[in-house]
């Protein structure tokens, strides 16, 4: 067996050596701390083996914040490199690796887990369910995501990072042009996380279709739950395409097949075609739950029912269908001819219509409302104009003929950051502030939240607005430097300064989490915002592990709002409390995550015999699962009464 010892540790670069040392020290530190405080058992029992959707959601969010840090540092490094012309902070190869890992991490390991986490926490509570349909599968999804994320992050210290862009286009990404093992990480780590995502999609669809509480018909569901449903459907349709593309891409790289190669009958552009058949729906996968979060937040803080509920539902359904019909707009310049380009131009522009409907519905929801400027609401308000800029520039890019000018410039980079950041990131922030009390029983500080909001917003616009003009002036994307004569320097410098504010905004968020954990007021009650409309606000904060002591009955949309108004359906009677059946925790998901991690690692290094052996360890996990007959346990009535004491005396 040819073990590539020389390739295992990437050395030489002082930045890398410093990170390697930092990683080793942090790991040793964490292990030492866990041992010293005797927390291993707690970690294992409470977190690693949990199947509770809320804890899984919290783990998703925690990982998402970590990945945001990693991806953000990549972004800052790029901004530092291009701040002045002919800079030598990063060389060309290093810049390639940094934008590749930045793109992949931000989309797959930051945006996705953040949204999966928020769906996990809020969706079952909104539909009055006690968990998702398949709790153990849910834990498996998380551990596969985590395993993929760790494997991908390992690449920059062990073996070398992928460097062919987040799109990893063949033939560049093939063995012929990228011999090392760096790009194997792309094919394998994303595959592992993707299996988890697909499982989540199925899990959420079944949960929403089968586990709604009494009286909650589809058209009485909160808007966030609707978007979770449609997103999951897109996941089920789109992810298998990527699964197959990654699989055959991996076969090309590892076993010498010729699906995407230039010679021997391969079709390199087929990768671009398959990638975007998944890639465009993927951007809707990360934007639709965000739309749902904004809808709920805006209705809550405008204290009005969401305007045009039916048209909102229709709009997301139409968006989901159109999202599958536009993929070619990412490679108009491939030369597919005027007919194909025109068709995809039109389908792309059509998406602006349902999106416009949603924009107006949000505005009409706020019209004549008593708007309360809480932090979640601020993020939602800022989203509307900034996302509009992203949308309008999107329509500009949709015109195939014009796209030949914009293609591959920083104009495009500015456009998609103007959709992804206000769309996804602002929504994630809004959702975190909004549901934080439901997760932890205390609010994040509103005061630090405003710092976070203003720094991030100003930073974002100062960083990315100049990029539109840079792009129109001809600055190409993915270029590590430019000459002073190009005249780009001023705008690049402004953009770099903006990114410092972005970083400060992120730091404010982290500080807010720390500060609120230490000092925020506890005992916020079930409805900490005072204007909650949906069922999650009817139960304690943090939500008890069984969620609902008795399952609520829903009569209309915004059920909790009407229960409060009519003072009906809210009190808890002792005679109604029955023992609650809950699923048992399990070690199998975390084992599967570990098994996939090692399996993926040996695949990346192309150690074929070892990969057969560790492949068997994955199968072993499946076999254990088949003989797992633990059907859970009952929460006794006394425990429920004890937990529900915050309601006052229970008669």
């Amino acid at each position, binding site marked *: 067996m040819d073990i590539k010892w020389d390739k295992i540790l990437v050395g030489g670069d002082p930045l890398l050596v410093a990170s390697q040392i930092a990683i080793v020290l942090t790991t040793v530190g964490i292990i030492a701390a866990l041992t010293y405080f005797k927390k291993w058992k707690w970690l294992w029992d409470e977190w690693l083996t949990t199947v509770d959707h809320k804890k899984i959601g919290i783990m998703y969010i925690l990982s998402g914040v970590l990945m945001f840090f990693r991806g953000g540092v990549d972004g800052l490094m790029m901004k530092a490199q291009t701040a002045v012309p002919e800079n030598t902070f990063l060389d060309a190869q290093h810049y390639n690796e940094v934008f590749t890992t930045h793109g992949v991490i931000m989309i797959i390991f930051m945006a996705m887990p953040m949204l999966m986490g928020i769906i996990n926490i809020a969706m079952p509570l909104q539909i009055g369910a006690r968990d998702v349909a398949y709790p153990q599968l849910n834990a498996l999804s998380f551990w596969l995501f985590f395993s993929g994320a760790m494997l991908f992050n390992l690449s920059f210290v062990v073996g070398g990072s992928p460097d062919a862009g987040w799109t990893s286009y063949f033939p560049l990404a093939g063995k012929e042009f990228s011999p090392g093992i760096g790009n194997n990480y792309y094919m394998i780590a994303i595959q592992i996380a993707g299996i988890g995502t697909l499982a989540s999609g199925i899990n959420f669809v079944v949960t929403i279709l089968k586990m709604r509480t009494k009286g909650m018909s589809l058209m009485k569901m909160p808007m966030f739950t609707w978007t979770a449903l449609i997103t999951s459907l897109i996941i089920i*349709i789109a992810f298998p395409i990527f699964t197959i593309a990654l699989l055959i891409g991996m076969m090309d790289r590892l076993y010498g097949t010729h699906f995407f190669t230039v010679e021997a009958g391969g*079709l390199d552009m087929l990768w671009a075609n398959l990638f975007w058949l998944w890639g465009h729906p993927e951007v809707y996968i990360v934007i639709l739950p965000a739309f749902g979060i904004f809808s709920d937040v805006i209705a809550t803080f405008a204290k009005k029912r969401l305007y045009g509920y039916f048209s909102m539902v229709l709009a997301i359904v139409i968006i989901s269908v159109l999202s599958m019909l536009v993929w070619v707009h990412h490679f108009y310049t491939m030369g597919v001819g005027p007919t*194909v380009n025109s068709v995809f131009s039109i389908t792309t522009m059509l998406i602006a219509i349902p999106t416009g409907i949603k924009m107006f519905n949000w505005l009409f929801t706020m019209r004549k409302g008593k708007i309360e400027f809480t932090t979640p609401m601020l993020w939602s308000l800022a989203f509307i104009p900034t996302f509009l800029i992203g949308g309008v520039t999107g329509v500009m890019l949709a015109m195939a003929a014009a796209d030949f000018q914009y293609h591959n410039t920083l104009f495009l980079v500015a456009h998609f950051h103007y959709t992804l950041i206000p769309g996804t990131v602002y929504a994630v922030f809004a959702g975190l502030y909004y549901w934080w009390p439901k997760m932890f029983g205390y609010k994040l500080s509103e005061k630090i939240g405003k710092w976070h909001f203003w720094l991030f917003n100003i930073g974002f616009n100062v960083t990315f607005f100049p990029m539109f003009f840079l792009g129109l002036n001809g600055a190409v994307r993915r270029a590590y430097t430019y000459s002073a004569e190009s005249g780009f320097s001023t705008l690049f410098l402004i953009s770099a300064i903006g990114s410092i504010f972005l970083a400060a905004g992120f730091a404010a968020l982290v500080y807010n989490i720390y500060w609120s954990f230490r000092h925020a007021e506890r005992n916020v009650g079930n409805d900490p915002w005072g204007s909650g409309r949906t069922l999650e606000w009817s139960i304690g904060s943090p939500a008890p592990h069984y969620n609902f002591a008795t399952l609520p009955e829903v009569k209309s949309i915004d059920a909790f709002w009407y229960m409060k108004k009519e003072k009906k359906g809210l009190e808890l009677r002792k005679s109604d409390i029955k023992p609650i059946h809950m699923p048992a925790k399990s070690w199998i998901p975390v084992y599967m995550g570990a098994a996939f991690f090692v399996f993926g690692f040996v695949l990346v290094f192309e150690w074929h015999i070892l990969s057969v052996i560790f492949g068997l360890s994955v199968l072993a996990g499946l076999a254990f699962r088949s003989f797992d007959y633990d059907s859970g346990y009952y929460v006794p009535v006394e425990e429920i009464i004890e937990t529900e004491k915050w309601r006052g005396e229970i008669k």
Partner: protein
Amino acid sequence: MEKQEKGFPYGHVIGFLVAVALTIFALLVVFKTSFATSTKFTLIGLMAVFQAALQLFMFMHMTEGNDRDSKVIHTIYAIGMGIVIIVGSIWVMTAGHSIH
């Protein structure tokens, strides 16, 4: 199908025989005839579609149970998306000069 739930499952036996016959025909068309390749593809393609429909209706309870409508809807949705993905890809990859 409901009628046969108690007695001998004729429907299933016939379905099974037809499925086997279709498979054998497909092999025969490919190995034992001298049609042009495109004709062979059309023939076995048709048989594949017929085979899939047979499986869905005879064995996979497509039209039974109280969630029948949702099964039909999601099957049609999946077929529609399959067509978009496959026909769309072939169209895009063979149009213009991308293939050359």
